């Protein structure tokens, strides 16, 4: 009962509002609002009134405009970065070391025997001016050769390039074998090319090279890939350099370590690679001090004498520093360390931490990237390199129906080899040259939000020195091979020092430049600056709008009532209204306009009766307020 009464009261108050006409409402609003401008509109003289009206509107417009700008700035999701540099105890990076040669030549000779013989024949062909060794070629295995032969393109006549097979008696005669005066032309006149033919040999493309060195290297690499792709990985691992052969000595800080502290991983390009401190399962080793004494010291033997001669022309150790849970892409990001030297590497960890969507386009764990990560078998974190390679392999499998040897395979697919996929070399070459496809991969792969780079300061010195050479080699040979003879030499030995620099980290961290607090304080600042307003003023304004609506509704209801009455009146259109009717009409609000319209003789009535009408609207607020102010000011002055 009580509640109902209260609600009714509320309804009444709501209905009543601060006035019955728009003007009253506006005057009331202007007089009572807390924003600074409107008050002045009503309490000044007409000229100033106009001026204040204009100023208020202008400022309101300004506020709206500036608010728009701020909200737009907020929605652009800008970031600010903070940079910190210093030294702290940090996890030592994972260190991957590989030998530049993937396999020990002595162990892969049986696989590469045919290929090497062929290669030597090719080199003899190129270098020897006379085809005197033709009889020696009979023993060669030409099945490999015929699949993807190397050819010479004689371009001395640019309109009629002549294609010559290096072994003339084996080319299939499809091209015009002109009676070339010189069997082998020199480098200026001729280009070497690799002929890549489709399955039935009808469609051939030539991959051109400007130098014979490149041509033979690429050709050999392609053939070797073909051979190794057919060997199971277990055997490949056995053929590579074992850890105990490669890693002779290891010292981390004060603690000795050995090859057993290294995790083995098979890299298709570099063979067996060994990773120190790869925190896949165990905790990473920390290093709390800068300097060589507290870093990792390694002595490695690359065994240069056992290099695969045509596969590895560069001798040294390939090494790379990376995060604990990331896959080492050593071919892209690795550096070399030279034999016979001591290479010191000072490390600075350069970390970039980003906010992620919607601030910067990056991915936290790669789950929102539309490419399957083939490196996930290694249980490593997402990286953009992994994504790009998976993308390439994916295209390779889709277009050539086999995977390339250098990248990991998804389940149920096979590596490319000439026996099962005779077309693959041509297909691969096409894939590799396809720039549009690479770009589409870049478009699809997203960067990882946490990006860590290891900045290295590399310095080198000769090691071992001439004076110490002898005993060092003796000790190391004894340790590894249990022999008193020297099994090591200057050509194979590498010393590495990896340590933190004096400042070992530089962290760039993103944070939101414009948060909601920033937005609100700026919105408030603008509103306050131009009009002295606050959120309450907005609520006031909203209230006034509700009142406005109410007044409109009331007016509409009145109008509707009036219309209905006019309609009922229209039925009795004939006889003129009686006096009683007229009196009733005047007390009625809605009836008024009708009568003024209807008959000219009734016009006089409203004019005469107008004094009572103003009386009808309830309390004039203005006058009420005046009284209050008067008493106020009187009170003040006394």
């Amino acid at each position: 009962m009580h509640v109902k009464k209260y609600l009714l009261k509320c309804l009444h108050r709501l209905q009543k509002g601060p006035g019955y006409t728009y003007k009253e409402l506006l005057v009331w609003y202007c007089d009572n609002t807390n924003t600074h401008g409107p008050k002045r509109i009503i309490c000044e003289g007409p000229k100033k009134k106009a001026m204040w009206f204009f100023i208020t509107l202008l400022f309101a417009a300004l506020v709206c405009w500036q608010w728009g700008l701020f909200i737009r700035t907020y929605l652009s999701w800008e970031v600010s970065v903070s940079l910190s540099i210093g030294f702290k105890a940090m996890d030592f990076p994972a260190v991957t070391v590989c030998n530049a040669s993937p396999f020990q030549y002595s162990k892969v000779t049986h696989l590469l025997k045919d290929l090497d013989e062929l290669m030597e024949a090719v080199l003899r062909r190129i270098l020897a001016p006379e085809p005197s060794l033709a009889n020696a070629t009979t023993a060669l295995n030409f099945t490999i050769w015929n699949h993807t032969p190397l050819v010479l393109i004689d371009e001395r006549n640019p309109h009629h390039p002549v294609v010559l097979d290096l072994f003339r008696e084996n080319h299939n005669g499809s091209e015009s074998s002109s009676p070339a005066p010189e069997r082998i032309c020199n480098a200026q006149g001729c280009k070497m090319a690799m002929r890549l033919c489709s399955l039935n040999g009808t469609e051939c493309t030539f991959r051109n090279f400007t130098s014979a060195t490149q041509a033979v290297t690429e050709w050999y690499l392609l053939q070797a890939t073909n051979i190794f792709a057919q060997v199971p990985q277990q055997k490949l691992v056995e053929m590579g350099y074992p850890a105990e052969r490669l890693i002779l000595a290891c010292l981390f800080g004060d603690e000795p370590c050995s090859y057993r502290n290294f995790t083995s991983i098979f890299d298709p390009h570099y063979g067996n690679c060994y990773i120190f401190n790869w925190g896949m399962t165990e905790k990473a080793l920390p290093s709390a001090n800068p300097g060589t004494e507290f870093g990792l010291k390694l002595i490695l033997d690359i065994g240069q004498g056992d290099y695969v001669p045509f596969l590895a022309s560069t001798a040294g150790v390939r090494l790379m520093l990376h995060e604990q849970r990331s896959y080492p892409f050593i071919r892209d990001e690795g550096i070399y360390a030279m034999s016979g030297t001591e290479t010191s590497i000072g490390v600075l960890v350069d970390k970039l931490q980003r906010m992620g969507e919607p601030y910067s386009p990056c991915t936290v764990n790669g789950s929102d990237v539309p490419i399957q990560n083939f490196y996930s078998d290694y249980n490593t974190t997402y990286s953009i390199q992994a994504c790009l390679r998976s993308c390439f392999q994916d295209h390779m499998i889709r277009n050539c129906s086999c995977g390339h040897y250098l990248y990991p395979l998804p389940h149920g697919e096979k590596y490319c080899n000439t026996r099962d996929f005779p077309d693959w070399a041509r297909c691969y070459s096409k894939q590799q040259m396809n720039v549009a496809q690479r770009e589409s991969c870049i478009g699809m792969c997203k960067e990882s939000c946490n990006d860590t780079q290891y900045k290295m300061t590399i310095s080198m010195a000769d090691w071992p020195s001439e004076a110490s050479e002898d005993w060092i080699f003796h000790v190391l040979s004894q340790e590894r091979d249990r022999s008193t003879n020297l099994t090591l030499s200057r050509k194979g030995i590498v010393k590495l020092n990896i340590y933190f620099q004096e400042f070992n980290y530089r962290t760039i961290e993103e944070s939101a430049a414009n948060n909601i607090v920033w937005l609100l304080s700026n919105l408030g600042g603008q509103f306050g600056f131009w009009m002295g307003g606050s959120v309450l003023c907005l609520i006031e304004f909203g209230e006034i709008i509700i009142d406005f609506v109410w007044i409109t509704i009331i007016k509409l209801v009145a109008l509707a009532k009036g219309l209905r009455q006019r309609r009922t009146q229209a039925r009795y259109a004939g006889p003129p209204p009686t006096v009683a009717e007229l009196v009733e009409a005047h007390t009625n609000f809605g009836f008024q306009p009708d009568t003024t319209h209807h008959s000219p003789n009734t016009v006089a009535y409203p004019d005469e009766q107008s004094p009572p009408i103003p009386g009808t609207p309830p309390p004039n607020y203005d006058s009420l307020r005046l009284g209050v102010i008067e008493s106020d000011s009187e009170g003040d002055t006394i």
Partner: protein
Amino acid sequence: MAPGEKIKAKIKRNLPVTGPQAPTIKELMRWYCLNTNTHGCRRIVVSRGRLRRLLWIGFTLTAVALIFWQCALLVFSFYTVSVSIKVHFEKLDFPAVTICNINPYKYSAVRHLLADLEQETREALTSLYGFSEIKSRKRREAETWDPAAEGTQPKFLHKFPLLLFDQDEKGKARDFFTGQKRKVSGSIIHKASNVMHVHESKQVVGFQLCPNDSSDCATYTFSSGVNAIQEWYKLHYMNIMAQVPLEKKINMSYSAEELLVTCFFDGVSCDARNFTLFHHPMHGNCYSFNNRKNETTLSTSMGGSEYGLQVILYINEEEYNPFLVSSTGAKVIIHQQNEYPFIEDLGTEIESAMATSIGMHLTESFKLSKPYSQCTEDGSDVPIKNIYNAVYSLQICLHSCFQTKMVEKCGCAQYSQPLPPAANYCNYQQHPNWMYCYYQLHRDFVQEKLGCQSVCREACSFKEWTLTTSLAQWPSEVSEKWLLPVLTWDQGQQINKKLNKTDLAKLLIFYKDLNQRSIVESPANSIEMLLSNFGGQLGLWMSCSVVCVIEIIEVFFIDSLSIIARRQWQKAKEWWSRRQALPCPEAPSSPRGQDNPALDIDDDLPTFTSALHMPPAPGSQVPGTPPPRYNTLRLERAFSNQLTDTQVPDEH
């Protein structure tokens, strides 16, 4: 009343007097304080008691002071920048790579020009160190210098003699050539001597540069004969080469086919045609990859060494000039396509018989120019003319500045930098004392006396490639056997003998990954930020806004001034009326009673209004009670009526 008067009155009633209605400034202030939107002022008027009022005045003034202080801080910190670091992973433009052999010209080709100089250098070595036969690792066949030339008059040593200085005897020096002691006057400048004094022997080697009149000689001494002889040789060398025309010099240097044995970029073969010639005065022919005019810049869409540039360089150690360069190898510089390669200053050296792998990381920087910092967008606002055919950089500006000064002061241009228009390179046939001039100028330049360092400004945006260089042995022992013959075949006709591995160098330049970092400065404040901060400050301390500022202007300037003006006007009018009424005996009437009816209580004259107030006269406060009420229209009207009323007696 006349109809005109009637209309006037009506207008007056409808359009009441605008402007300040307060009769005095004090009233105006009071009115302002009561009605203003700022918070402090009202408290001043409303609060009772002097202490409180004072406190409130204090608070208000403090708030005003704080606002001014904070706003001043905001204005002064307006031109600050905020730095953001962004990382993009995208297809990157490959930079231009310029490769030079360290030795500028084939020694066999320039030998006829330098024969005299070489001979005298040998002589100097003989007289100083007692040996003449220089054994280089590879003997050249046609190298034995002509002993018949020994008798000729040495012109180089005569011009700028190499001297042996004895530190004990100041001012004495022994000429190498004549062996005579001679007097040395003027200043002796020890190169590097003010850095460290490690030279223990008493004898130092140097040379003397004299201007024409040879009264004011400058002597340069070096702690080691190696430096002295090289420097001395270089001066003469520049002299000689400055007179050789450019085409001849290009022919004397290495051709692209010679220098580049193989080239491989992004998995595709390339050759000498992909390189453009760039002639450097001190390094001879250099070749720029990916720097062809009117051609699209190559880009890489994959990181890693196999997708970068791989070249094998032919160094040809046999053709090295023994006195000019003492190291073997090549120099490489990575730069932007439109940048000038400062190979001498910024190049990376490459060793022979090695594979040098250079991994790059791209960092782009953008700074904000004026008014945020002093950098320049394109150098057009730097008063130094760019003599290089390349975009502006600080380095270019400094070199241009020096060269321009050189032409101004010495009358000729220095050899290792481009020629400004209408200038010639220095040589001592035409400019006999240019070396002296050059050394003086160079010292001034280093000591920042020429003003170049203050005039030149850094460029606003630049790209920087951070390089990670690592070395490996190449070719490996086992591959050497087949690699060298094939490379020899590749070189073809140019070299008929078998290549040696110390003549070759392998170079790999690649992007480590395609992450590009850009460091961008952006304005920390915008004008709307400044305004909203102002608003925040004003609102926090006084709940003030621009409206309040307008109010203050209105009240303190317009209204106060108009009140003062009105009072002055009334005073003047009164004075006038008094002068008119001077014969009248009742002239000395109170001046104040005329304008304010409320205050003429002191006046004895019974006016209409005072008469109205007569009954409550004992209470002197009463007339003060109806003060002007500005905030209501009605009262205004009443007030204006009163005003017109008071003016009526004046018109009489």
